[in-house]
């Protein structure tokens, strides 16, 4: 603890010493000691009482004063009065021990007997140190005493025989004793009674009061219990409040209840308002949805019209061209057959003529298919006829057989016998299937495994058509968009982005549904559901579809 040692600039950490010594040799010896031992001293040397007075008047502060007993203009006792609280070490000549005892009694911290060999200087540092330490603990003690004396809680210390040896001011005030009346008496005089949580003490006048009590045992350096210190707090006020508190709580609760009720009501109103707002929002949302739906429908219709227009134009050309081709094809076929008839089977030209005949027949078939396709746009909305999906796929694959063979694609087709025919716009449905197969062929272009699987099944009131390929697949973000008009991943000039959107429109027009599942790098699967009889009912299929969708889940 450095509390007792004042610090000044430049002296920090050093012990400030005032040496009062009229013997020059002793002064020099001191100085040499400080220098030789490298002691942490910062010192001032004086020779007389008057000089000390002058120095102290200039507000200079010291941690310790070392003073020779006899000075020219006085003695060490004169210095005691001047330095007040600063610890003083008195030095005297040998044989002057009586003076030393006198000095100690007068308040000196310590003394040193000067011997002729000046050995006393060897013990000087220790003496200085212990004086300063003592000074510090004294200060500490003073401070603690002051603290204990002045705190508001009552403190009393009793020795191990329960004799009171100390009380503070608050104790005296609370219990009504003078310090002198209580010190030395047994603690029983406080009349302690009660249980752990509810202890009462008696004042001098016999009145009782509730207290809270803390108790600590004081041990000396060897660990021996020497005293017990108790801190007492008068809790009369708290006890009183405790009685009032429940009432206050009740009142508070009542208020809270009332406020809660008010808030609940407000909240209910708010909820009602919210509900109304939500209803309005829902209505708005539905209206918005309907508008969006109408927009989507309009967009689809527009796309269909564009497509129809396009197909109509293309269809007319194709129909005309195909038609015109029929006559020359008939000619070619018959010319070849005439030649075949008049060529010996041994003639090597015979088999070549057979090839020519076969290829011509293929051309004739293609023209037939093209005519079927081109006719569709000329049909009115009621131009439906009964047809099975299987037959339509026959035509589609015949139309694409050249490409399928050339690109080395394995096509598997599976269908059960009892696939019912459907009232449909044959050419439109054919366009859908053709589109799907062409898409599959495009997807297979860079695949190692080149397979297309077509599966046609009856599914209750529906015919289910699945077209699956082992192609490059469609990324998840694109799968959602493939049915959007103008969405295409094909290079410019290869796809218009209308194909699948038109497909969906056609399937929808038939009261059916088309969905797509795809995994990048693995393949794509289109599933089409077409209602078997659309002639009687038009709308309810959508509800049946919804139900089926539910079931699938």
């Amino acid at each position, binding site marked *: 603890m450095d509390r007792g040692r004042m610090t000044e600039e430049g002296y920090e950490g050093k012990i400030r010493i005032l040496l009062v010594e009229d013997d020059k040799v002793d002064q020099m010896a001191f100085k040499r000691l400080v220098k030789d031992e490298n002691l942490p001293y910062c010192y001032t040397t004086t020779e007389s009482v008057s000089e000390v007075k002058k120095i102290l008047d200039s507000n200079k502060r010291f941690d310790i004063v070392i003073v020779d007993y006899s000075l020219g203009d006085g003695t060490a006792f004169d210095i005691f009065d001047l330095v007040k609280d600063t610890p003083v070490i008195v030095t005297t000549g040998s044989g002057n021990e009586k003076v030393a005892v006198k000095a100690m009694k007068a308040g000196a911290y310590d003394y040193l007997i000067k011997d002729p060999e000046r050995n006393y200087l060897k013990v000087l540092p220790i003496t200085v140190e212990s004086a300063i330490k003592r000074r510090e603990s004294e200060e500490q003690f003073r401070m603690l005493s002051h603290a204990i004396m002045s705190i508001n809680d009552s403190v009393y210390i009793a020795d191990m025989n329960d004799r009171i040896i100390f009380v503070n001011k608050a104790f005296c005030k609370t219990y009504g004793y003078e310090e002198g009346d209580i010190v030395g008496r047994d603690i029983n005089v406080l009349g302690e009674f009660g249980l752990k949580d509810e202890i009462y003490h008696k004042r001098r006048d016999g009145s009782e009061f509730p207290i809270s009590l803390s108790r600590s045992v004081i041990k000396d350096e060897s660990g021996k219990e020497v005293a017990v210190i108790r801190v007492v707090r008068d809790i009369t006020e708290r006890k009183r409040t405790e009685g009032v508190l429940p009432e206050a709580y009740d009142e508070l609760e009542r208020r809270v209840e009332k406020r809660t009720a008010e808030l609940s009501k407000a909240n209910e109103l708010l909820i009602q308002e919210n509900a109304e707002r939500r209803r309005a929002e829902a209505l708005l949302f539905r209206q918005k949805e309907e508008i969006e739906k109408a927009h989507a429908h309009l967009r689809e219709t527009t796309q269909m019209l564009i497509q129809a227009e396009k197909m109509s134009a293309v269809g007319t050309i194709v129909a005309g061209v195909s038609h015109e081709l029929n006559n020359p094809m*008939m000619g070619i076929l*018959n010319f070849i057959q005439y030649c075949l*008839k008049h060529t010996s089977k041994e003639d090597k030209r015979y088999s070549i003529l057979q090839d020519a005949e076969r290829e011509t027949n293929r051309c004739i078939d293609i023209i037939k298919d093209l005519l079927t396709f081109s006719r569709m746009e*000329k049909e009115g909305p009621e131009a439906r006829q009964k047809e099975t999906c299987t037959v339509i796929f026959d035509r589609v694959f015949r139309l694409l057989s050249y490409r399928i063979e050339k690109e080395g694609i394995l096509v598997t087709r599976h269908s059960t016998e009892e696939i019912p025919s459907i009232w449909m716009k044959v050419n439109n449905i054919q366009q859908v299937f053709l589109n799907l197969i062409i898409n599959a062929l495009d997807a297979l272009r860079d695949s190692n495994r080149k397979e297309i699987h077509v599966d046609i099944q009856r599914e209750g009131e529906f015919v289910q058509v699945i077209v699956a390929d082992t192609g490059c697949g469609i990324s998840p973000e694109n799968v959602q968009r493939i049915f959007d008009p103008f969405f295409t991943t094909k290079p410019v000039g290869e796809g218009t982005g209308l194909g699948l959107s038109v497909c969906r429109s056609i399937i929808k027009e038939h009261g059916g549904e088309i969905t797509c599942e795809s995994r990048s790098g693995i393949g794509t699967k289109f599933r089409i559901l077409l209602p078997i009889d659309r002639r009687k009912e038009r709308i309810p299929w959508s509800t049946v579809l919804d139900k089926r969708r539910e079931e699938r889940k």
Partner: protein
Amino acid sequence: MSKRILVIDDEEAVRKSFILALEDTGYRVEAAESGEKGFNMIQTNKYDLVFLDLKMPGMNGVKTLRELRKIDKTVPVYIVTAFHKEFFDQLKEAAEDGIGFEIIKKPLSSDQIVLITKGILEGPQSL
């Protein structure tokens, strides 16, 4: 006396197809490249069977048919067509007017021509 067949078609390839296909059948096959010419031939000759095209410049197939029937009500007339929609209504009307005809679809192969012709001229037993 071999049976006479008339083919009326503006397309030479078609006319020639019939002629070549029926070459060794013993029938006498004649051809006209227009409705007008065919009608003229029917006026001067008696045919056992007529193959008639629908879409022709000048007198089309239906018109030719109607004119032909005014002269010969019994000769079998087979309209050989690639199905031109625009003539369907006229054909329907003709049928409603009691004008007899059959329709076969182009293109026809040699075998088909022979089979159809024999079927008509000899009856099914000849096949």
